[in-house]
């Protein structure tokens, strides 16, 4: 929009204005000039620069008091001119500089003149613009020694403004201006970089200001946090840029010993500084004090940008002034290292970048001084670490540990210098052990039990790193989760860079030394190994040689051996009587082993834990111990990856053992360890892991079964294995089951309980792996049953439209059936009790003389059922109950092999009857369940036995219990008696149907159940009783109908044929009939 492109045009326009301004110096005139200037092009303006500047400078120089407003507008106008033009003469530059600086000169004091903030700002901007408008090399000639006093004045002026002004705007502007003045401006207008000589001259010049600038900036930096972060950031930037410029090693090394005589007047020469060694030393010392102050203050600054700038400071100073500021290297590194774990990701990233840069440049490792400083710092930190961990709060601990972490990271492989000192390693480890102490007062952990023996696969976990799902743990000395994370990182770094053999040995020793250290030592060992694998560690030292996989495997093997050894793996974790008994036995045997010369410290620790009554705390501690070791195994797997497969032969068995542990936490952790292992070793699932390694497990199981007294958890492993596998396991299982049964036969009295649960798991697995898919025998049975019921059901269709022929046919049918029932028909099997040849299962019977070999699962089930018969009458109720469950499963598995099932059922019967009739209600309940299953699978075989041995007792108990339950209150439904009644009522119906009972027995059942149709009975019992009758209807609808109608007859019957007499039933009157509702429901079903 420039209207006046040529200088001539512009001159024409500007001349009157300039003249006017020269004559009368008013704000209006200045403003007028400025408006006119806006319409002049830059080139024209450049031509007329001197001309336009004249009235402005004249105004400034005119002696006498001036109004601030005028000066401000003049300065602003001046600034405008300068911003569009260049200053091409050194003299003009110097003069303008002086004139502008003078605007804020106050003759009375050192401080800037007390003028308005606007003016101050205008002047600062003017100065800044001036310095930017200097043309080319003019700027360098400006910085000649003679300018020193004026420059010094401006610098101190700006510092004072930055420090003392209230307005943030002024402060920032002053700092910016200072930056420009010290030639550290970071804007784009300074394309030319300085050559060495120029740098050196400038350095010499600026060195004079260094004390003033650095102290003033330090004051600003360390000032109130509230002053705003941008001020601190700018100050920091100017500080380190200036310091690194003046103290640059590169410049200083070229400084000659003798100061060249400067060609300036004496007064100025006095101000000049010669940067020789002594000066450098002194200045360095003073700067160190300032730097320490700055770091102390800034490293905890709440604003991340400030901390970020601090990283910049450290980088710049360490890179450029490593020799001149060698004294500050310690604090600087410490600051850097302390920020490695900063909460701000930007700071962290920057820090890491700087560290990496240092490592690349060999700043630390290649520089002996730095390495020494770091080692020294680590030494002293290690020394004070135990005390600090003891006294500091969480925040303090966090920063101390961050520092430790940073040192380790920066030192890299050189960390071994420190670790090789026994004293320091001890200090370090003591501190780690101390701070990692767990709080073991939580009772819940001891109490929580794994009741349900559900499938391990049910817990969906898809983590790829072992620690993502780590159980929350509580530490005695801190609560902040970040500290734990940091500690782990520290240990991992140690494992990565340190001598792993040395460290593992050391912590293994501590592990052995005392129970108090054991958990922590194990945690540390776990992390060391993880770190050594180098999977999580960000390596700054690329040439560092990691521990080789073979070595790592060797180390892991030895730790594993220790973890899973008898005295570290089998700790007391619960107080149950049975377990205690086992523990006691274990103790005895272990003691024997110990007397044959084991390590003494193990003996003492072991004894300490096998006191007769372990405290809750010690059990809790033991639980954690086991969990940490389990987690460790997971981490080892993670560290070794597929290499861990070779260790599975020793590691998998103990983990599975713990997966079957009763304590919830242990079993959970063991399961997640298994998940970790399967991830690490490349198995798709737990099932896959177990299947693929079942040979190792079976080996362990069968070997340990040989010493059951020592390895009483062995059955659990088999249990867990069975629960998590599939039928492909069968051949191996069959192999080991023989061992199990043989061992069981030896230990019927002592360890039946643990075996019974294995048998249960085994049979449950078999039943699941080999579901009976409509076997031939069963099909026949079913169709037979259906046919039978169909036969019986036919009369139900009898309706009102019955003809005489129908009745006749019905009678004929009836007679025929009666004949059949009496056994007068030859083609139907005589299903009597003594018949011991059950229907043949002959699907693969090719050679009739040779029996085909039994399937393995049938053989196993047969063997197990054999044992069940013995154990059915065990003294222990729990065992009896469990055995009844096993028996139930045996029957299910064997259902299609009647040749095996029936003889066994025959032998089991007396004992089962005993359970049904003589045992406690709990056992009766289970026994009844078995009876139902048995009835379902071999009905014919059971019928007469049931009717003879069991039915009378059941019916009798139902009858005797009925009045009690009829009178009982709502609490009754929680009693065992109720449950028993309910179970019997629920079970009787299906039993009657599957056993195909005769009429007399059905009547017995019906009579016993009838009373439960009364509305006085609890609702659930009524329901169950109704279900009995529903089943009875299927078996014998007619008599049921009659029976029900005798209780209550809702309709009047009209004979189907006039020749028949009307039926009259004896039923109670409707009003008080308690059976009314249920009978109506049932009769509705019957129609």
């Amino acid at each position, binding site marked *: 929009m420039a209207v006046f492109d040529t200088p001539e045009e512009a001159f024409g326009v500007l001349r009157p204005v300039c003249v006017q301004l020269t004559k009368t110096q008013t704000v209006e005139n200045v403003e007028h000039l400025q408006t006119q200037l806006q319409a002049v092009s830059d080139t024209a303006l450049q031509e007329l620069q001197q001309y336009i500047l004249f009235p402005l400078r004249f105004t400034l120089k005119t002696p006498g008091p001036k109004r601030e407003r005028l000066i401000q507008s003049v300065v602003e106008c001046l600034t405008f001119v300068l911003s569009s033009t260049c200053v091409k003469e050194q003299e003009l530059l110097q003069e303008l500089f002086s004139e502008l600086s003078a605007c804020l000169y106050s003759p009375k004091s050192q401080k800037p003149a007390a003028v308005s903030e606007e003016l101050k700002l205008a002047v600062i901007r003017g100065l800044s613009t001036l310095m930017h408008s200097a043309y080319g090399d003019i700027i360098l000639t400006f910085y000649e020694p003679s300018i020193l006093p004026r420059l010094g004045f401006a610098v101190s002026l700006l510092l004072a403004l930055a420090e003392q002004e209230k307005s943030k705007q002024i402060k920032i502007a002053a700092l910016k201006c200072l930056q420009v003045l010290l030639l550290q401006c970071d804007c784009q207008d300074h394309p030319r970089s300085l050559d060495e000589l120029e740098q050196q001259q400038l350095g010499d010049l600026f060195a004079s200001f260094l004390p003033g600038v650095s102290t003033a900036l330090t004051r600003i930096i360390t000032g109130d946090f509230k002053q705003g972060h941008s001020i601190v950031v700018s100050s920091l930037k100017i500080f380190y840029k200036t310091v690194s410029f003046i103290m640059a090693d590169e410049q200083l090394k070229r400084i000659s010993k003798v100061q060249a005589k400067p060609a300036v007047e004496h007064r100025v020469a006095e101000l000049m500084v010669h940067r020789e060694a002594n000066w450098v030393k002194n200045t360095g010392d003073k700067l160190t004090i300032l730097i320490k102050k700055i770091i102390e203050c800034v490293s905890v600054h709440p604003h991340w940008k400030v901390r970020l700038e601090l990283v910049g400071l450290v980088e710049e100073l360490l890179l450029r002034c490593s020799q001149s500021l060698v004294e500050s290297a310690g604090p600087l590194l410490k600051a850097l290292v302390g920020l490695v774990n900063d909460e701000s990701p930007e700071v962290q990233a920057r820090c890491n970048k700087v560290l990496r840069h240092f490592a690349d440049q060999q700043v630390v490792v290649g520089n002996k001084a730095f390495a020494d400083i770091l080692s020294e710092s680590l030494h002293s930190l290690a020394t004070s670490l135990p005390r600090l961990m003891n006294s500091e709060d969480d925040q303090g601990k966090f920063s101390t540990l961050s520092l430790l972490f940073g040192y380790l990271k920066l030192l890299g492989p050189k960390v071994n210098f420190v670790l090789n000192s026994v004293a320091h390693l001890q200090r370090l480890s003591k501190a780690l052990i101390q701070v990692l102490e767990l709080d073991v007062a939580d009772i819940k952990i001891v109490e929580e039990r794994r009741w349900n023996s559900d499938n391990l696969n049910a817990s969906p976990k898809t983590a790829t790193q072992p620690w993502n799902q780590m159980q929350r743990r509580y530490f005695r000395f801190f609560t902040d989760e970040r500290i734990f994370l940091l500690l782990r990182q520290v240990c991992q770094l140690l494992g990565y860079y340190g001598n792993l053999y040395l460290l593992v040995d050391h912590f293994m020793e501590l592990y052995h030394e005392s129970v108090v250290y054991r958990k922590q030592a194990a945690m540390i060992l776990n992390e060391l190994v993880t770190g050594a694998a180098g999977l999580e560690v960000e390596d700054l030292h690329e040439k560092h040689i990691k521990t080789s996989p073979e070595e790592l495997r060797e180390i892991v093997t030895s730790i594993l051996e220790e973890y899973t050894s008898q005295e570290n793996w089998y700790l007391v974790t619960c107080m149950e009587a049975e377990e205690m008994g086992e523990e006691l036995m274990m103790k005895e045997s272990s003691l024997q082993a110990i007397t044959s010369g084991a390590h003494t410290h193990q003996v003492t620790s072991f004894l300490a834990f096998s006191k007769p009554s372990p405290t809750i705390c010690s059990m809790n501690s033991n639980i954690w111990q086991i969990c940490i070791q389990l987690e460790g195994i997971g981490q080892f797997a993670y560290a070794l990856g597929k290499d861990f497969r070779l260790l599975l032969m020793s590691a998998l068995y103990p983990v599975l053992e713990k997966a079957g542990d009763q304590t919830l936490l242990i079993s959970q952790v063991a399961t997640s360890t298994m998940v970790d292992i399967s991830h690490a070793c490349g198995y798709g699932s737990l099932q896959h892991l177990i299947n693929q390694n079942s*040979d190792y497990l079976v080996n362990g199981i069968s070997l340990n079964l*040989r*010493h059951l007294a020592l390895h009483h958890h062995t059955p659990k492993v088999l249990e867990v294995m069975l629960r998590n596998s599939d039928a492909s396991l069968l051949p*191996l299982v069959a*192999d080991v089951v023989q061992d199990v049964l043989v061992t069981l036969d030896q230990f019927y009295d002592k360890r039946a309980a643990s075996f019974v649960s294995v048998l249960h798991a085994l049979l449950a697995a078999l039943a699941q792996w080999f579901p009976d898919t409509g076997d031939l025998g069963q099909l026949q049975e079913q169709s037979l049953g259906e046919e039978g019921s169909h036969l019986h059901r036919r009369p139900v269709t009898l309706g009102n439209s019955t003809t005489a022929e129908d009745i006749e046919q019905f009678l004929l049918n009836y007679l025929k059936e009666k004949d059949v029932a009496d056994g007068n028909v030859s083609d139907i099997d005589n299903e009597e009790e003594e018949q011991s040849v059950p229907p043949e299962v002959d699907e693969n019977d090719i050679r009739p003389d040779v029996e085909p070999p039994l399937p393995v699962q049938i053989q196993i089930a047969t063997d197990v059922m054999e044992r069940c018969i013995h154990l059915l009458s065990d003294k222990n109720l729990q065992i009896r109950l469990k055995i009844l469950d096993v028996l139930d499963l045996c029957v299910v598995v064997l259902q299609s092999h009647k040749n095996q099932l029936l003889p066994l059922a025959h032998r089991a019967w007396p004992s089962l009857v005993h359970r049904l009739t003589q045992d406690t209600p709990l056992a009766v309940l289970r026994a009844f369940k078995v009876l139902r299953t048995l009835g379902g699978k071999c009905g014919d075989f059971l019928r007469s036995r049931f009717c003879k041995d069991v039915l009378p007792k059941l019916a009798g108990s139902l009858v005797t219990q009925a009045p009690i339950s009829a009178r009982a209150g709502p609490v009754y439904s929680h009693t065992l008696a109720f449950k028993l009644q309910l179970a019997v009522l629920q079970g009787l119906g299906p039993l009657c149907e599957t056993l195909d009972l005769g009429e007399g027995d059905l009547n017995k059942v019906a009579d016993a159940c009838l009373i439960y149709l009364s509305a006085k009975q609890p609702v659930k019992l009524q329901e169950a009783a109704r279900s009995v009758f529903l089943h009875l209807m299927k078996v014998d609808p007619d008599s049921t109908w009659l029976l029900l109608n005798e209780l209550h007859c809702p309709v009047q019957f009209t004979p189907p044929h006039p020749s028949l007499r009307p039926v009259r039933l004896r039923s109670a009157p409707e009003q008080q009939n308690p059976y009314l509702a249920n009978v109506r429901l049932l009769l509705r079903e019957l129609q």
Partner: protein
Amino acid sequence: MAAHLSPPPDPQFVLRGTQSPVHALHFCRGAQAQGCPLLFSGSQDGLVHIWSLQTRRAVAALDGHGGQCVTWLQTLPQGHQLLSQGRDLKLCLWDLAEGRNTVVDSVRLESVGFCKSAILAGGQPRWTLAVPGKASDEVQILEMPSKTSVCTLKPEADAKPGMPMCLGLWQADSSPRPLLLAGYEDGSVALWDISERKMCSHVSCHEEPVMGLDFDPEKARGVSGSAGKALAVWSLDGRQALQVHGTHELTNAGVAEVAIRPDRRVLATAGWDHRVRVFHWRTMRPLAVLASHSAAVQCVAFAATGGLLAAGSKDQRISVWSLYPP
């Protein structure tokens, strides 16, 4: 068992999966065994399993005997070659180099007997093989790998020792003449000089057929086990005459195989009583009874180094023990 006795030793591990009774065992010898030790097992269903002792798993199963029982296994010192003898009257030579597992050669056997073969092989490409011969009491000597018959060793007509039951070939350091030890059905052990084709010595050691023998050339002493209850130790004097040194009574009758550990310190027997018995070879003091099998133990073998002992049983398992490591 009395409480003060230390518990019976356990096998280091048990190899499962042959799915058939184990009849022959042999530890791989030679250089290739260093990195990854292998164990070969031959089972009744004709398979030879190769087990890695590092992973404790079968790495391969060789099927070369048509489902007939494998009775004897041996590796050749010079390479990755395995010999297997089966009841199918075949002796197979397997090439196992670089995982090849193929039959490269086979020798037709003439006799169905129980007798296991024997080899004498040094570093040379030529080696000697002793196999049961055509007639029931003969032993045939072959030169391998050309399969040329060297001679047939037949006892004199009046000796009637019955069938040879087990063989052992060896060559004394001092003389180039290969010698053969043979245990016979009548319980006697005979020493044959192969080059002269004559029986040097013949001594009756057992009442029952000799089932296995092993010889310690350094001490010039051997041991044999039979179907009976005794273990016989015999020695060879300078004139190559066998002398019974003594017998050692066993608790239960029946030894399927005897093996002296390569370092000649201990001796192990495979017992029909499900047990492996370990003796001190010099003194014949019983050291241990290893009970882990649930059926007759049919073979025992020692690893060349490291002191591992393997026992194969009718119960289809192979137990591996680490006892008195050298």
